[in-house]
């Protein structure tokens, strides 16, 4: 593997692991042991990749960029989601710059091409630390039948061949920039959010409903117009409904 340094000062400590249980778990453990802001861990393969709510994230070895970043942001708890928002923007920009694939964001921070998921982000808080984990499908030989129409990869979307190191370096440099101006990052996020204007189904533990997503508020919550009543969504699954 070529020796490539991240072009970022903040994210200079990049560790490549051939295999791990979960890059997020590795970095969470490091955070609890006092590791500083800026640690980045990349894995070729995860035995136990994680998505939200205990879901799994699986990828064939080498096919995806699997990375977790440790941050100790100086933000109030209700503002920490901004660093996750900034990560979504930075990764979409890095994907576009290195592969040419243009991804839209689905609230809160999936990357989609059409309705197909290209990348997912899971953040986990540990004390004052936030671990931001991202899985980006980069170079898959094919999409398994059960994920047809649901997931995709950069190479399958006609992207230029890209090494994971190249995408990572581009992402880390861009992420450092986005983190330096979170107001600007939020503006870019809103502009890239394919959810705004879409008919969506929102699934929360206590309710499910369909409406039109109209905007995000200044706390990043999704505003959904349900028959004239605006619901504010802080947490939940959002599905972009296909046009009837």
């Amino acid at each position, binding site marked *: 593997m070529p020796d490539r340094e991240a072009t970022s000062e903040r994210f200079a400590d990049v560790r490549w692991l051939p295999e791990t249980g979960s890059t997020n778990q590795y970095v969470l453990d490091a955070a609890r042991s006092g590791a500083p802001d800026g640690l980045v861990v990349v894995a070729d393969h995860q035995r136990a990749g994680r998505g*939200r*709510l*205990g879901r799994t994230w699986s990828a064939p070895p080498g096919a995806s960029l699997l990375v977790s970043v440790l941050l100790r942001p100086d933000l109030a*708890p*209700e503002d*920490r*989601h901004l660093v*996750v*928002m900034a990560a979504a923007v930075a990764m979409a920009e890095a994907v576009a710059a290195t592969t040419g694939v243009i991804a839209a964001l689905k609230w*809160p*921070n999936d990357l989609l091409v059409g309705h197909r998921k290209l990348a997912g*982000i*899971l*953040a*986990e*808080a*540990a004390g004052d630390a*936030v671990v931001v984990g991202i899985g980006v499908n980069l170079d898959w030989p094919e999409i398994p039948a059960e994920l047809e129409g649901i997931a995709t990869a950069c190479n399958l979307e006609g992207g230029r061949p890209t090494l994971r190191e190249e995408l990572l370096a581009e992402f880390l440099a861009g992420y450092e920039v986005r983190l330096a101006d979170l107001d600007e990052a939020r503006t870019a996020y809103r502009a890239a959010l394919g959810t705004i204007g879409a008919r969506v189904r929102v699934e*929360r*533990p*206590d309710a499910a409903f369909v409406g039109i997503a109209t905007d995000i508020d200044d706390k*990043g*919550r999704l505003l959904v117009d349900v028959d004239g009543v605006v619901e504010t969504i*802080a*947490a*939940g699954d959002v599905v972009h409904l296909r046009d009837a």
Partner: protein
Amino acid sequence: MAEIRAEITANVWQVVAEEGQMVAEGDEICILESMKMEIPVITEVPGVVRELHVEPEQVVQEGDLIALIDES
């Protein structure tokens, strides 16, 4: 009694502690989920969990009471 309250509006993903359980400083009481961030809620004081006011799949608002810890 020490009150543990939600710092943000979120879903309760998992309730880790039980009423009557002895907890040490830093032990997890529950895990919240919001904006695709999972947030463990921990107790900052040791004691016994006297009351749990959340259950899985509940939505909590910022400031809602999650648990009472008896420090005595």
